């Protein structure tokens, strides 16, 4: 690796080593893929109790200034202007051709102060994109020396409310700024596992103390990136670079639900973002492909890149993410398929090492999402 591409570590690196984590390079960081418990048990632990994830490699960005909401709205197909105070919304950075540059979470901290969390692998490109498109309209502040912890699972709210009682009143997709044991925390009730849970942004110097506080509860175990991926796959959640990319519109990625009414045809602030013409035409007239769940027959996992064929051998699409769902104990996959074949209800097959594995198109998610909506 060249000097300017040095591998980075999160503020919790030493804790991962001490916990016996298997470390792997991911998005320029040395990250824990699993701990001695192993991916399967870490996954199940998160579904049954509470898993603690270090996601400090993700990008944390603040947009500040009197025009920040309007500015962000000009580059996402989402209603930001009417995003209520201390609420979160899922958004997408689109490109000129209607494709997706990244997906992100936006929190309205009030006073035209927005907090964004973006993917680790895209964060440098996102920062450049924000600077070049809206850098003159608001201040784009890339947060350094911060950590991000995710506490996920049905026990997450009990664990957190023991040290921060007011968090029990929070509902899904809301935020609070709290001081826990003298540490300033920005807490959102959100996550990437399909379970109830929280993400906590905290300064790098406090990260270890906060992580230790969570781990002192016997319900909490470290969970690595391996189980993070199998959890999100079961929960049917998109991953950038897999279900989402520069070449497909959000409609083609089955993310129409994320496109706010206010920004669609006839909406109060229709269009006016990069690629709006393509995205709105896909919304109004339909797109040729979509992203669906696949249930492979048998036990052999069908993985990313596997081609999907119909009975006659016509190519119908491709698997975007695939693997094994530890909670449901069978292989599962997500694929981008041509819509005409889904509608025809054709018999479909995945090609794995020259074998044809029968697959059934199923609705996502594979497991029930357990968000706390109050």
């Amino acid at each position, binding site marked *: 690796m060249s000097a300017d591409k040095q591998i980075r570590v999160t503020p919790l690196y030493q804790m991962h080593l001490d916990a016996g984590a298997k470390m792997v390079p991911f998005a320029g960081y040395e990250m824990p*893929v*699993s701990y001695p418990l*192993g*991916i*399967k*048990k870490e*996954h199940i632990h998160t579904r049954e109790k509470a898993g603690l994830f270090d996601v400090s490699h993700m990008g944390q960005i603040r947009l500040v200034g009197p025009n920040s909401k309007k500015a962000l709205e000009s580059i996402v197909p989402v209603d930001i202007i009417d995003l209520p105070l201390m609420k979160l919304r899922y958004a997408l950075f689109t490109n000129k051709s209607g494709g997706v540059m990244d997906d992100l979470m936006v929190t309205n901290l009030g006073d035209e102060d927005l907090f964004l969390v973006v993917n680790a692998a895209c964060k440098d490109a996102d920062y450049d994109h924000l600077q070049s498109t809206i850098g003159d309209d608001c201040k784009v502040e890339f947060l350094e020396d911060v950590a991000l912890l995710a506490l996920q699972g049905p026990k997450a709210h009990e664990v957190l409310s023991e040290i921060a009682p007011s968090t029990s009143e929070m509902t899904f997709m809301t935020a609070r700024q709290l001081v826990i044991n003298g540490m300033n925390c920005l807490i959102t009730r959100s996550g990437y596992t399909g379970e109830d849970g929280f993400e906590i942004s905290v300064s790098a110097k406090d990260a270890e103390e906060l992580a230790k506080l969570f781990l002192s509860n016997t319900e909490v175990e470290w969970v690595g990136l*391996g*189980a993070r*991926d*199998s959890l999100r796959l079961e929960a049917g959640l998109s991953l950038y670079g897999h279900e989402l990319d520069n070449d497909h519109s959000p409609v083609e990625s089955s993310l129409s639900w994320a496109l706010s009414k206010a920004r669609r045809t006839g909406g109060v602030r229709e269009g006016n973002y990069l690629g709006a013409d393509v995205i709105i035409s896909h919304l109004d007239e339909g797109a040729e492909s979509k992203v669906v769940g696949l249930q492979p027959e048998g*036990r*052999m*996992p069908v*993985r990313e890149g596997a081609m999907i064929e119909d009975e006659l051998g016509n190519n119908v699409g491709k698997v975007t993410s695939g*693997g*094994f769902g*530890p909670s449901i104990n069978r*292989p599962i996959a997500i694929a981008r398929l041509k819509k005409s074949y889904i509608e025809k209800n054709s018999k479909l097959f995945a090609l794995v*090492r020259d074998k044809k594995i029968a697959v059934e198109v199923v609705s996502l998610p594979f497991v029930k999402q357990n968000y706390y909506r109050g």
Partner: protein
Amino acid sequence: MSIKFSEDHEWIQSQGDDLVVIGITDFAQEQLGDLVYVELPEVGDECSRGENISVIESVKAASDLIAPVSGTIVEVNSRLEEEPELVTEDSMGDGWFIKVKLSSPEELDDLMDESAYNNFIEE
């Protein structure tokens, strides 16, 4: 019975009459993590040294099992198809993969003994 090891982290146990049992080592099993699927070759298949003969799938990824010797597959551990976790639980015993009738028994001489293998994984 003598047991040998390959650089691809397989163990090869001689059973006499040019017959060997092949599995993966504890080291390999730990590296792979939780196994979810094992694809075995067919009984009667010929294999030559260096060829992919089986696929081992963990939650995360698929890896190949590479034939450490040449010969004919005479038996496969079909229990692994339903219980891949046997490899994790008992890689040197119930988690065996295949039995091979050697066509070139001298290939065994190119494999490592236990102490050489232990040095190999230390590196």
